[in-house]
């Protein structure tokens, strides 16, 4: 009797969360789907008409789509490469016996707490500016031509900024994982005469594989939606050189007021994110059973 009572109560307690999330997910998504089949521009309201898959056709055959799709891949891939490799290195270093480890940890972690607009503007103006930035001063000091980061390599510049923001996350997660490594295993390997490289590749790296997968998937979810860093630095330019899918859809929807085209792009972004999400859900689902 007590169980049926608490079951009903449990259902009742779940209700608000489920209804809210369901509404948040289903209602706008259905609206996006509906808009994506319309010829609908905010500048000419009242002239909406059904045009089938034409929005998708326009979006997918637009050269801007190819460029921003490619940029999205480079941005996500580049940041993942830098943060995973750097994160593993940092995690191993911070796992050693060092003096003042807590202070080192605090410094490494700090960039993660800096809001995206601040980190992007600080890097853009104070470090990467070709005239007044610190890098330019340094280049002049050692006698080389300063680089104009955002016009010569806009995408790379954004990759550098975003990597700086996410390196602490990767390092922290991987450090937590490395600390759960069984020390006796390493000592046994030591006794068997294993060198640092074989210890790394045969013991540490396999132990980290799950954490690395988690970092890759979680970062990918966030990195697919990079927006503020692009908005305040390059606004996607020059041309479309630093536009990613998220930014492309933003310009189409809210700057060109093309609701239909922007919605078709939004649905495509959802499909891309879902492909990543499926893998992440499997990983977390496995953990839920264990």
């Amino acid at each position: 009797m007590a169980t049926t009572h608490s079951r009903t109560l449990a259902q009742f307690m779940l209700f608000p969360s489920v209804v809210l999330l369901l509404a948040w997910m289903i209602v706008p998504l259905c609206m996006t789907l509906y808009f994506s089949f319309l010829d609908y521009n905010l500048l000419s309201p009242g002239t909406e008409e059904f045009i089938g898959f034409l929005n998708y056709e326009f979006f997918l055959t637009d050269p801007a789509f190819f460029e921003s799709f490619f940029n999205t891949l480079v941005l996500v891939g580049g940041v993942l490469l830098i943060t995973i490799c750097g994160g593993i290195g940092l995690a191993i270093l911070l796992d050693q016996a060092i003096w003042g480890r807590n202070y080192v940890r605090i410094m490494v972690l700090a960039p993660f707490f800096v809001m995206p607009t601040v980190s992007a503007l600080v890097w853009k103006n104070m470090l990467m500016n070709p005239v007044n930035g610190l890098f330019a001063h340094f280049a002049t000091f050692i006698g080389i031509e300063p680089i104009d980061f955002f016009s010569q390599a806009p995408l790379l510049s954004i990759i550098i900024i975003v990597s700086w923001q996410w390196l602490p996350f990767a390092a922290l997660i991987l450090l937590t994982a490395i600390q759960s490594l069984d020390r006796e295993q390493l000592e046994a390997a030591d006794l068997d005469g294993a060198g640092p490289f074989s210890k790394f590749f045969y013991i540490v790296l396999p132990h980290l594989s799950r954490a690395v997968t988690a970092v890759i998937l979680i970062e990918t979810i966030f990195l697919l939606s990079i927006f503020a860093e692009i908005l305040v630095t390059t606004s996607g330019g020059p041309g479309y050189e630093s536009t990613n899918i998220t930014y492309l859809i933003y310009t189409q929807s809210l700057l060109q007021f093309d609701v239909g085209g922007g919605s078709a792009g939004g649905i495509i972004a959802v499909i891309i994110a879902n492909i990543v999400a499926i893998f992440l859900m499997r990983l977390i689902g496995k953990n839920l059973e264990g």
Partner: protein
Amino acid sequence: MAIQSSNKSKIIYTLLAWSISAAIFFPIFWTLLTSFKTEAEAISASPSLFMFDWTLENYQDVLARSPYFEHFWNSVVISLGSSLIGLLIAIPAAWSMAFVQTKRTKNLLMWMLSTKMLPPVGVLIPIYLLFRDFDLLDTKLGLVIVMTLINLPIMVWMLYTYFREIPNEILEASRMDGASIKAEIFHVLLPIALPGIASTLLLNVILAWNEAFWTLILTAANAAPLTAFIASYSSPEGLFYAKLSAASAMAIAPILILGWFSQKQLVRGLTFGAVK
């Protein structure tokens, strides 16, 4: 011998770790330093590390010339408001999933998580239009609603992993003693779960404080939190490095300090319990 060599490697590792972490921390350190310089010194071609005339005028300027405190207040209301409302909705849900498990519990958890993976551009236009029609554009209320909804899955998940660690025996014992469900929640469960609830709150305040998609898109002058306020410095009008630094320093300082307290919870919260 062995002790000597381990001391030597400790020195090397320490030096290496300190120089790398100093390099990672440098942009933040440089921002703090620049915020105390004059604009002329801030762009000087031979920047000095500490030997400049320290001044507070940038802070005074930012506070005097812009409604900084309004934006700061907006950030506080939006991040704290959405986290507190989120807790009210998430605690009952996490409680019921952790202690009254059914066959559907796991699927329900996974489904909640999947809503977090929806890219914001997928719902950008409907949210924008709905906000326009309901007069929610550029209001704190609108942003609190959005922030609550986007962080709700993380809250439920974090709380769930904390509640799961509470041994069921304690609850059974209290039931044996005749405690009602209400007493069970308020006198047994909540006191034990308080640290977990506090860290969930902390992490969500941090996430909402730094959120920079919806805050930039849905606000203009009135409800803009600090993320949007700082973005207004992106227009290249004159030389403003020192003021940008002062505004940035004030925007990141509170969350930097909160963040350092939440290191451990961060791992659990952001990996949905996949790494502990």
